[in-house]
């Protein structure tokens, strides 16, 4: 009997702490564990007793890479409890700061974290020695996303300006118009990014995913929509917990989500793209087609191309909003507290982010529930790993280990978030 163990004790180029363990016995994958050893921080518990207006500031601290997602999902949930809708230019500004986060986060993942895998570098800094123009372009694109967050949020990490009801201060038309030129450059650079990523070498691997994302009647989803899947889910956000459940497994400090009636599912760029191709602007659809993508992409390694297509969308959308912007009279809508339960669902760069709060008449949080994208994807990652290793048993341990890491990095996982998630351990028996 021949046994092999492949393990990675501290997965690199992901946000947070996780490890992988794969055990192979007689040429069959016997065990796959993707564990999160990120220490738990108990956000849902510490939110109890805080004011409902504090949720955007506190929950943004769950994740340094997608703070805006936390601010938007929590604000939306609080506004839904209190029966307030934020519309017009304030809604557009929320979408605009979110576009900034998508551009920053996607550029970071594409150029700094994911591309080095395909080109065989340990990191982007080493890659920069051979491909200086590629890395410089990535950094410049990333910076434009960050600059947009600075404009609307005050700073790129944990912005201070968004609040329940809108913003503390809104930009003038003049402030915002300064972004037209950099964003026009960014749109071209993101089209170049689609061309660049489509030439990378991709392992052959396809899977029949259940893609879960938001869907909106007339927009590519970022800030709102119904929760849908390609396998029949079509629910409003308040039905989220009826449709999905979270399971606490012993090997992880992150809870794993699944579709109650079925099994694992995939959230994030590939899901949004599959469920909403028809909502992409023509420039993004055309770029995808030219890169050889069909309207559905089922090779998770190609998520890097999908992420690039979404960057094209985000730049295009940001330009659209900026050109149409008219500063609102007031930077926020008053949100008087009202006892009740509210739900918030928005699309973080790495996938659907669900919040649920119960507050009392005075606006004090009684209960909080947060389901981040990485805990939703954790089960899909394990299934990907199992199937990928089974198909690639002839690879050497070194090569297999690296590609297993890539299987996880395909998801742009955000482990700090999921800890409520990476180390690789391949064991061959």
């Amino acid at each position, binding site marked *: 009997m021949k046994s092999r163990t492949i393990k990675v004790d501290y997965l*690199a*180029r*992901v*946000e*947070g702490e996780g490890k992988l363990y794969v055990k192979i016995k007689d040429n069959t994958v016997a065990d796959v564990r993707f564990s999160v050893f*990120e*220490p*738990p*921080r*108990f*956000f*849902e*518990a*510490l939110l*109890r007793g*805080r*004011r409902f207006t*504090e949720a955007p*500031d*506190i929950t943004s*601290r769950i*994740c*340094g*890479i997608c*703070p805006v997602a936390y601010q938007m999902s929590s604000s939306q949930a609080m506004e839904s409890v209190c029966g307030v809708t934020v519309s017009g230019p304030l809604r557009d500004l929320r979408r605009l700061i979110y576009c900034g986060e998508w551009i920053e986060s996607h550029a970071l993942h594409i150029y*700094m*974290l994911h591309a080095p895998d395909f080109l065989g570098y*340990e*990191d*982007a*800094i*080493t890659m*920069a020695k051979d491909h200086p123009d590629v*890395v*410089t372009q990535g*950094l*410049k694109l*990333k*910076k434009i996303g*960050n600059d947009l967050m600075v404009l609307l949020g*005050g*700073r*790129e*990490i*944990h912005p*201070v300006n968004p*609040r329940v009801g809108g913003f*503390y*201060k809104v930009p003038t038309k003049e402030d915002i118009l300064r972004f037209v030129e950099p964003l026009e450059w960014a749109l071209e650079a993101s089209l170049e990014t689609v061309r660049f990523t489509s030439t990378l070498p991709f392992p052959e691997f396809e899977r029949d995913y259940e893609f879960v994302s938001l869907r909106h009647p007339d927009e590519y989803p970022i800030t709102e929509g119904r929760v849908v899947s390609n396998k029949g889910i079509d629910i409003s956000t308040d039905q989220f917990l009826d449709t999905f459940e979270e*399971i*606490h*497994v*012993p090997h992880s*400090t992150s*809870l794993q989500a699944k579709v109650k009636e079925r099994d694992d599912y995939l959230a994030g760029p590939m899901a949004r793209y599959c469920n909403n191709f028809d909502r992409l602007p023509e420039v993004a659809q055309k770029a995808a087609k030219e890169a050889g993508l069909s309207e559905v992409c089922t090779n998770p390694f190609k998520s890097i191309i999908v992420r690039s297509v979404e960057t094209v969308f985000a730049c295009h959308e940001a330009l659209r909003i900026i050109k149409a912007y008219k500063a609102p009279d007031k*930077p926020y809508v008053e949100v008087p507290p009202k006892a009740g339960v509210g739900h918030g669902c928005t699309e973080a760069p790495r996938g659907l982010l669900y919040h649920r709060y119960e507050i009392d008449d005075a606006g004090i949080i009684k209960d909080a529930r947060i389901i981040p994208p990485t805990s939703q994807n954790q089960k899909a990652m394990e299934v990907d790993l199992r199937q990928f290793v089974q198909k690639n048993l002839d690879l050497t341990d070194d090569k297999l280990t*690296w590609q297993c*890491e890539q299987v996880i990095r395909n998801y742009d996982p955000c482990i*700090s978030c999921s800890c*409520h998630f990476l180390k690789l351990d391949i064991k061959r028996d």
Partner: protein
Amino acid sequence: MAAVKKPKLAVWKFASCDGCQLSLLDCEDELLAIAKEITIANFPEASRAIVKGPYDISLVEGSITTPHDAERIHKIRRMSKCLVTIGACATAGGIQALRNFADVNDFVSIVYANPAYIETLNKSTPIADHVFVDFELRGCPINKYQLVEFISATLNGRKPNIGTHSVCMECKMKGNVCVMVSSGIPCLGPVTQMGCGALCPSYNRGCFGCFGPMESPNTKSLAAWFERLQVPSDDIVRMFRGFNAYAEPFRKESEAHEK
């Protein structure tokens, strides 16, 4: 020029959101220049490659919340010439230190179905409670320019030019109108250390203390002003009990207002 051995930089993570270490990757204009002067020897968020210690500079993010981490920080200290804590989690215990004011077992059972799988300490504590810290960079998140200044000063053998005055002073230097005086908005600016560039008051909101208490802050006097603005005592508790809740001056002031 003869090859000079480049100093080695390591980045370590404890309980945190990764935002402070992301600040290094957010130095889009400076990152490649920094990488020319130092060897990024251990930075898992950015690289698979790990160069063995000892390290000249260790940047430590996050707070100590597990028995394993309480051991790990001592190993890191032994490998590091200069250990720098980055951000509110590492310097004060972070927002997760709110557990220090409650029973952690209640917290575990609120979040996890099987509390027995979770190993955690009763308190979230700053790095300096465990090992000697050479320098601290405050903030939730840190200011990336302070990080670049610290690295650059260290490379040049000089003291980093990082202030310890209050956000209130930054506000005056910026020429902001005082949000507390003009609009009656409670603001932690007078007792909070500088570093953000008086961000919140510049956006018409009160400071909520991301950079933690300044040296010798008069929190008692500020709290008395909050009372005059009719801020209820449980809101005063919440204000001091934010991302730097466990930093002593803020902790004591919040406890003084607890019913």
